[in-house]
């Protein structure tokens, strides 16, 4: 997968975590994934359509989810399963929204659909023609995963800026 597409997601996740949780998210690993997606903690999924199509899952392991729910309890109230899912969903919205903004400003035109909580343990592997990249970020407590399964829509890209 093109690094030009991946880099905005790395930048955005760090920026959003830094603004909302006052800590940094260090990129720890980048791997190519094969097969079905295995959820590790609390996850939210966003679908993209347009020049770039596919889906992105942000997945926080239990330690990271617990930390975020605790750090943001002054806004969301005492941590519960529901409030933690709401926070993860909104963080996903912000990370993907900021990434998409950067990609749009580089000439890729596409639409973001509202995030949905991803409840099943094993999910789809994107689409048949998508490469899947798994980014692992370390927080002071726990880890966050971004599973990106997207591909360029060659039909939509005709006539788009380079």
């Amino acid at each position: 997968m093109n690094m030009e597409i991946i880099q905005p997601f790395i930048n955005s996740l760090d920026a959003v975590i830094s603004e909302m949780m006052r800590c940094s998210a260090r990129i720890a690993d980048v791997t190519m994934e094969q097969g079905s997606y295995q959820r590790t903690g609390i996850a939210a999924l966003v679908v993209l359509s347009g020049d770039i199509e596919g889906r992105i899952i942000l997945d926080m392991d239990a330690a990271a989810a617990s930390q975020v729910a605790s750090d943001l309890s002054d806004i969301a109230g005492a941590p519960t399963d529901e409030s933690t899912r709401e926070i993860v969903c909104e963080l996903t919205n912000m990370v993907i929204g900021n990434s998409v903004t950067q990609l749009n400003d580089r000439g890729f035109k596409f639409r973001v659909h509202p995030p949905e909580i991803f409840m099943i343990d094993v999910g789809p592997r994107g689409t048949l023609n998508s490469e899947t990249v798994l980014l692992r970020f370390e927080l002071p407590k726990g880890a966050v995963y971004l599973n990106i399964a997207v591909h360029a829509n060659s039909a939509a890209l005709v006539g788009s800026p380079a």
Partner: protein
Amino acid sequence: MEFKPLTSADQPKIRFLVVDDSVFARKNICKMVEAFGGEIAGEAGDGFAAVAKYNETTPDIVLMDITMPKMEGIEAVEHIVHDHPEAVIVMVSSVGYQDNILSALQKGARHFVQKPVKPEAFYEIIRYVLSENPKPSQTAEVEAQS
């Protein structure tokens, strides 16, 4: 951080309608609005509900998300401004590319704030929008002072 209230003690508070499909995002924005000395007139979780809630509460300012189910924020702006050309709407969205911003402004939104929202910047934008679109009570006060 402390903020000077948006209105003086003898003026009615500025009333906000907060529209976002995320409960957490609404709580976050409502908390900021209250820290600015504003009042929450209502909340809505999608564009359809926002249009209905606007008609019901006629707020001073609407804070409107873009990416929402049922009806997106930009379409809701178009409906609200069609019926209420005086409506003051500020878009608050994580998706901040130029096409989106331009489209929202063309439909009648007055400003745009990108998430994650920084309270200090948000406060200044709300003050700016209010100064450009004062409530009648604020206009009277300005005229009395001049």
